[in-house]
């Protein structure tokens, strides 16, 4: 996820403290219109069903917490209780644009001033993994600011240089094109600026490992050379992430599994996949698969 990655390389550049508060997401968006550098950070919790989130909710709403968070942050606490009253329904209506579907609660969702999701942490384990919240929220806000700075600079540029800035902004979020492809317009602008994809960003943000795998599975027996050619085209893309390269190797493995003449090369494919990032889940899976193959 994005926030943890961001925390690793972004410097804390916050100069002023005491975050503002908004009673609901609609108010936060309205408030953000008057703050050019606003980052909206939402705590999603369930006051009547999620006891593990309550200490965090209590801290979130304390004056001390707001005082320790960067002033460009707008804090919102969105309670999603099970027991619905007229009051909670009215509040839910005001929060409906904060439509993130958390996989686990409590969750922290970060939005820009246009209401676009910047990052999400679901579950207490992920939130705890962020480290001290007041610090990490400052880092996230700085990352969001840096993204907008890159995109603002891109506005004044053209060609691959522009695409470079747009792509670097997308990279800061590590969430592809976001929920419901909310950042698709950025990709479109990037493609328009760099139709030959000299930067490699268009490839990164249109890469579909699942589609390549399905092609390898469905066409691997009948037209393997054709599939291999497609995989090779993707392999040549210079800016694919490590994860994407691992998925590409996995698709190649699937292809060679169905291609008798290349079956002997499966081991090398798995070794490459593993060496790309031995500790990642796909790196470990490749290592396990090598053991399975060794057992015959």
């Amino acid at each position, binding site marked *: 996820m994005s926030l943890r990655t961001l925390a690793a390389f972004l410097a804390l550049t916050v100069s002023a403290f005491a975050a503002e508060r908004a009673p609901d997401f609609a108010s936060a968006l309205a408030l953000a219109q008057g703050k050019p550098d606003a980052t909206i950070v939402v705590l999603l919790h369930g006051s009547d*069903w999620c006891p593990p989130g309550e200490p965090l909710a209590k801290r979130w709403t304390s004056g001390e917490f707001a005082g320790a968070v960067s002033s460009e942050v707008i804090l919102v606490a969105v309670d999603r209780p099970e027991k619905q009253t007229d009051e909670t329904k009215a509040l839910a209506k005001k929060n409906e644009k904060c439509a993130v579907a958390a996989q*686990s609660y409590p969750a922290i969702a970060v939005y820009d001033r246009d209401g676009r999701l910047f990052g999400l942490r679901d579950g207490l384990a992920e939130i705890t993994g962020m480290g001290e919240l007041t610090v990490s929220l400052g880092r996230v806000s700085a990352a969001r600011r840096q993204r907008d700075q890159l995109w603002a600079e891109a506005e004044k540029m053209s060609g691959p240089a522009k695409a470079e800035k747009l792509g670097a902004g997308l990279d800061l979020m590590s969430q592809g094109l976001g929920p419901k492809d909310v950042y698709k317009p950025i990709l479109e602008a990037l493609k328009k600026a760099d139709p030959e994809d000299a930067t490699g960003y268009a490839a990164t943000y249109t890469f579909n490992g699942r589609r390549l795998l399905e092609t390898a*599975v469905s066409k691997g027996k009948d037209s393997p050379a054709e599939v291999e050619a497609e995989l090779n085209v993707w392999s040549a893309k210079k800016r694919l992430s490590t994860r994407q390269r691992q998925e590409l190797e996995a*698709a190649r493995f699937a292809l060679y599994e169905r291609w008798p003449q290349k079956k002997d090369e499966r081991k090398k494919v798995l070794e490459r996949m593993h060496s790309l990032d031995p500790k990642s889940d796909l790196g*470990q899976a490749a290592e396990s698969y090598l053991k399975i193959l060794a057992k015959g």
Partner: protein
Amino acid sequence: MPKAVRLTLLAPLLLGAVLLPAIPLEARTLPAAPSLNDAASLVSVAKDPEKTIALARAELGRLVGSEGFLAVEKLPDGVAFLNLVLDNRAVLGDLLLSGPWHDAPLQTLPALHHIWKGDPKCFDNRHERTTAVATALSFSRKGWPPEKAFDRYKFFRDSRLQGRLHPSFDTLETWEKRYVTAASGNGGYAETGGWDDASLYWLRDNVKLPMAGYIGACWQAPYRLENVFGDSIHGSRYYAPFDTVTHAQRVRDVGGVCGSLSHYGANAARANGIPAITMGEPGHCAYAVRQGRGNWTAAYSLSWERGPHFALWEASWNLLVLSEIALDDKEAHDRCQVHLWEARQLREKTPALADDAYQLALVAQPLNYMAWKETAEAFRDKLKPDAATWTRFHDGALKSLAAHPEAAFKVVNVLYAAMPKDLSEADRAKAYLHYHEAVAPNAGPLAWKFDSALDAQAKLIGKDTAKLLAFFERVLALQSKSAAWFAPTISWGQDEFGKDPKTSAAYFAALARVFANSSAGGSSDGLRNALRAALLAAATADNTDAFQALGKTTKPFVGETKTKVEAFSGDLLSSGGLLKLSSTCGHDAPESHWAVIEGLDKGRCHTDSEVRPNVTARLGRLGEVSGIVVVNNPGQNIVREFPMVVSVSENGKDWTQVARIAEPVGVVRVGLDAAQGKRVQYVRVGRDDDRKEFFHLQNLLVYGRKLQ
């Protein structure tokens, strides 16, 4: 039963936490039941707390036998444990009043012993005690190793104490906790690498949702036939390379198909203290999450034909619902059980008195299916009733259970095997028809395999076709007004008689008489008229199986010529489904409805003149929809279909509009993107202006990728 006697049964069981003197170990063979000599003693024992606890001990002895007690005594501190259990009213009550034990009853006490050894204070308060007993009962299943019970108990004990469970867990009774502690894979105990305790820890900490959120939690895991290496879900290598994480996590990360996804959703709920089950459906695995007492909500379910992988009574959705009603009424349930304990003590030696005890049990809780079934089995095996007694009991069962047609039939089907010889053939036939008369007004909690009831009754009637046809006609007449059972009855008749040239003419004639259509003498017209009503009934009942079975018989009318359309990618998902109209009218041709969704050029459906009419296709398969094709009837009346709105839904309740077409066009094509087409089971086409007008179509075709 006299009213006075019934009133005396209202005395509560009073199973409390009072400790009784320990039973001397050397004297323990099997605990003796209190004296039960006559009908009055059955009532007085049930009213007397001391005698009731003695009866409970005797029931425990009956369940485990002297060998079972001996096996527990041989365990470390086994004697002390057994004394503790036998002396503790609360523990005995939890063990014996929380629904039947499973198929390995001798594992129950050893499992509870392991829990107690690991936590000697487990009986000290209600929370831990109910969790301990519920866990032990979950381990009363074949293949569930008792020595693993403590680990499961510890998970829920510690999670509760740490405040990591849904708060509703604290309110659950032992029987309710059984649905939680039974977390597993397909009902079987899961060893390391499956749906084991490690997965529960992961699910508890990584899938924490409001109760209603677990209904959709299965979709956190992607539906994928192949893993990232291209290995099929049907092979052994799908999950094998991902051996460094829990099974739950790899299902979320790697994916799976219906079985994995449903177990993910159900076990996520259980890991957070919420009752849930997985269920088998034809060619599919679904699950259900309990949203509160008596409120089981099906998830990722595609059929009414649900076989729960875990059940307190029997593997049936209808019985799951009924068991909730019974166990929820604790006072009635407990009184019923006490009389059943009495009956079991008496069944071998004094069957007549046992019969009295059974009758008291049924009076205590008339909706207790298990009590009816046990009594019926006792009739069959021991009591041997005369015709009058049999008929009285049979009619009583139907009266009590009529609102639950599946349960009612399961009881009377046991009784059919106990029919006394002096019951005349006419009275037997009357009994068979009585069932249909009783259940016709009741749809039941859910549909069930109604044809199995007709099969069983037909088998008892014999091979005389004339008699069978006469019986069918009378059943059809009774069910003709039933919203739920009419279509399956016709479908059954079609299978039984309609396909055989020797019986089809008589069958169609019977149909014609039932439909009071004197002009429908020919078989074709008879069938057409029957099908019209039956297909509409099947659609109203949302009974896809019946709609399809009947729909296929419409081929003589609709032919097999496919409509020529440009298809979208994937399979024809509407095929195998069901078509429902907002209304019908004299212009409608219900015998052509099946062809509408199957892509035949003789498809036709026609609503009445109304404001905002619509036509809904329930897909044969849940799917990711790539596109929808609507073929309109050619001609000037095409304007009736526009402005046309096309909407999709996963549950048939919450709709998302995906297209609005203002201008008339012969063929409407609507391509859906990934977000719009994600998980669709229903597609609706209608008109959205305020005109009062007819609406008709030739075909409603839905394409995409199957998600089951």
